[in-house]
């Protein structure tokens, strides 16, 4: 008897179909991988199973009983436990307090007895953790074990783990895999969401591959290879851009043995070396969270370098299109005109004789709006009222002003529609043609393929390879991105 069966689940957001007719079934005690690129519909599907959102059509069966999962509470009652990528823990509380939070309905707290229960539970499943420890003091791997204990304490039989290894160190990943195998052996059913192929092959029994909201394959891991999975995951017609032939000029950027730490002080970028010439686009492909953010920040001199060197030709200004335009690239409460002077407000013509020059600021904005096709009622409209595409055009207009020799673009098309995406691409290609060197970082593989003259693949902080943009194939890059090696 199958434990969980989905029948033709469909979910639309407006005109966008996030999940289209998805059917799958999972046996009890099975570890089932859901594999897919960013935006393939994995998270939507899991949110449906855990009751956060409702499907537009389709049915869910648990042990062959039709169920309606109307809320996360309902999901917990049905024995479904979700372990989010970002932990839902209170750092100031102890492990025990976190685990009993929200379900302890006794009049008396009786922490000691609950500590014993939790200690027993953690021993039974090999989830080593001290029930009296404060969660904030635990390493990330242990916090994740607390999350797992939390759903087990709520008597979950189906555990959903959303990219659980993204935040873990390699030894923590190995111990997680052991724990999950034990849980499966004890009869729990596990859904493992990932885009790391070797983990899927190592850990899981069966795998469902999603692409653009649809199931493209359902198979057992013994019957497939990581190369096949990579092909299934990314396979599609490639994006075509009109690109002139590359005429690389002098070296603009030279990076040697770069090491950069993330917020936790761990090495996020390791031993990265490359050179970039004027008129050239270096694409950086990789799954989200493999050190791209730290690399981009370091290149834009916003993050301290731990080791290595970044040499810039003639100390040129860096045009930096940040990943998060709303949090970092723009001041949402400012107008278009005010945002456009963010990096030059102290300079002529915007500031003369100690005062901001209203007219110069406004006319600068009018010119930029025309040139970059920013659609708004006027230059004094707040950018929070603009669409994502127009917001990004404001960032572009500011960052490309003054023709910087080096441009770092991080996920510049994220969340944009087709038209705006095209505008961003053609803008950047025009910059390349005039001689700018561009680092184009994206998790959208087809974009990187189409834009780049050379493609660096980033995995766990390293450039695993730098390929020629003309000869590299989607499968090759997809495999490297997922931690596979070329034969």
């Amino acid at each position: 008897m199958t434990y969980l069966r989905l029948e033709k689940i469909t979910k639309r957001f407006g005109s966008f179909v996030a999940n289209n007719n998805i059917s799958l079934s999972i046996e009890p005690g099975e570890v089932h991988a859901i594999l897919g690129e960013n935006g393939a519909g994995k998270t939507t599907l899991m949110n449906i199973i855990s009751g956060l959102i409702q499907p537009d059509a389709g049915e869910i069966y648990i042990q062959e009983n039709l169920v309606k999962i109307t809320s996360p509470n309902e999901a917990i009652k049905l024995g479904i436990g979700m372990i989010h990528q970002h932990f839902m823990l209170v750092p100031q509380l102890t492990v025990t307090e976190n685990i009993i939070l929200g379900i302890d309905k006794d009049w008396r707290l009786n922490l000691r007895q609950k500590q014993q229960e939790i200690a027993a539970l953690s021993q039974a499943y090999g989830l080593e953790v001290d029930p009296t420890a404060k969660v904030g003091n635990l390493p990330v791997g242990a916090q994740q074990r607390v999350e797992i204990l939390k759903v087990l304490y709520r008597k979950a039989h189906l555990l959903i783990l959303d990219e659980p290894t993204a935040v873990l160190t390699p030894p923590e990943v190995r111990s997680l895999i052991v724990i999950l195998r034990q849980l499966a052996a004890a009869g729990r059913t596990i859904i493992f969401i990932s885009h790391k192929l070797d983990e899927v092959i190592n850990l899981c029994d069966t795998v469902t591959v999603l692409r653009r909201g649809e199931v493209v394959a359902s198979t057992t891991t013994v019957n497939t290879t990581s190369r096949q999975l990579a092909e299934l995951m990314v396979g599609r017609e490639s994006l075509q851009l009109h690109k002139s032939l590359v005429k690389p000029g002098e070296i603009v950027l030279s990076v040697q043995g770069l090491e950069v730490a993330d917020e936790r002080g761990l090495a996020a970028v390791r031993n990265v070396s490359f050179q970039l010439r004027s008129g050239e686009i270096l694409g950086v492909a990789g799954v989200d969270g493999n050190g791209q953010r730290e690399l981009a920040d370091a290149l834009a001199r916003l993050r301290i370098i731990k080791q290595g060197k970044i040499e810039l030709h003639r100390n040129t200004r860096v045009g930096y299109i940040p990943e998060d335009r709303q949090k970092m690239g723009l001041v949402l409460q400012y107008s278009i005109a005010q945002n456009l002077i963010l990096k030059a407000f102290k300079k002529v013509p915007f500031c003369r004789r100690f005062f901001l020059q209203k007219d110069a600021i406004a006319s600068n904005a009018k010119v930029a709006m025309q040139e970059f096709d920013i659609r708004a009622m006027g230059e004094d409209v707040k950018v929070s009222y603009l669409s994502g595409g127009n917001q990004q055009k404001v960032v572009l207009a500011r960052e490309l002003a003054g023709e910087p020799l080096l441009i770092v673009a991080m996920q510049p098309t994220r969340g944009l529609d087709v038209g705006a995406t095209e505008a961003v691409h053609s803008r950047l290609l025009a910059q390349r043609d005039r001689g700018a060197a561009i680092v184009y970082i994206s998790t959208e593989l087809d974009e990187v393929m189409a834009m780049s003259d050379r493609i660096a693949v980033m995995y766990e902080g390293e450039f695993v390879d730098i390929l020629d943009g003309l000869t590299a194939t989607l499968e090759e890059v997809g495999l490297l991105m997922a931690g596979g090696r070329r034969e």
Partner: protein
Amino acid sequence: MNPIVEEKIKLPFLSPLIAIVSALLVGAGLILLAGANPIAAYTALFQESLSTYFGFGNTLTKMTPLLLTGLGVLVALRAGQFNIGGEGQIYLGALGSTLVGLYVQGLPALIHVPIALLAGFLFGAVWGLIPGYLKAVRGVNEVITTLLLNYIAINFVSYLVQNPLQQPGAPSPYSPLIAKSAQLPIILPGSLAHAGILLALIAAGVVWVLLGRSPLGYQITTVGLNPIAARYSGISVERTIMLVMALAGGLAGLAGSAEVMGLKYRLFEQVSSGYGFDALAIAFLSRGSVLGVVLTSLFFAALRSGANVMQRSAGVPVTVVYAIQGLTVLFIAMSLAWEQRSEERSTVK
């Protein structure tokens, strides 16, 4: 899109007005409870404080420290910093001006007054810079440090006027008179109104230009609205915070200077009667607008200066005025929460 934009432009002026009117209405209820006629009470209050010569002078005198300290809170708020330390900064500013007024002698007023004011500004600025430094470099919450530094300042001044600075043979703790050349002139003869109000209005003008027209104002506002974007665009968030806290402290310090140089001519134990805390209410009520701070501090000053007359002529206890001040703050907090919620609702599509 247009209706939303228009609404946003109107609201900053609308909601403080609604808050004040609501506070006066509820205050009227309290006056009724106290067994008096609210219309008579309010008439007495505002007639005295705004339309009599002496009363108006009194209002201007009370408006001076409120406006200067309110500006200090406003400037800090622009950079996202809560300066609860206005009270302590007033004490330090008063001390600075007193020292220059006592120990520097024989200068013409044209030089002595500016130096005494500068000393007040600098003493206040140091008192603001301490929490600014702790916040920017050490990450210590400025709400706590500014609040606690108040008590240090108040007790420090209290110690000074009881010991080294006390006038010999004085019946209660206060310092000797400061030099005539360091005193601010009276601008409405026969009333208490002194040139401090002109200083405060000039300061308001300077702050208005600084925030609205200068690159520094842009920098401060950017840090307040989005520190991440500020850092990304090359602004030093730490230096901006330190600068703004020093400026805020300096403005409040000037309030202390004006109290000593324009009103008391000496340092007392009780330099300020809670102006630093009223300034918080004033700055929040004004929602980032300099003009708002001017008008609101006039309103608060009128309440303070008319209160006693209201008690005498209408038999309403002075405490009703404090209740009205408190209610105004309460209503403005409510309108802020309400606006935030309606904004959230309009952004969730």
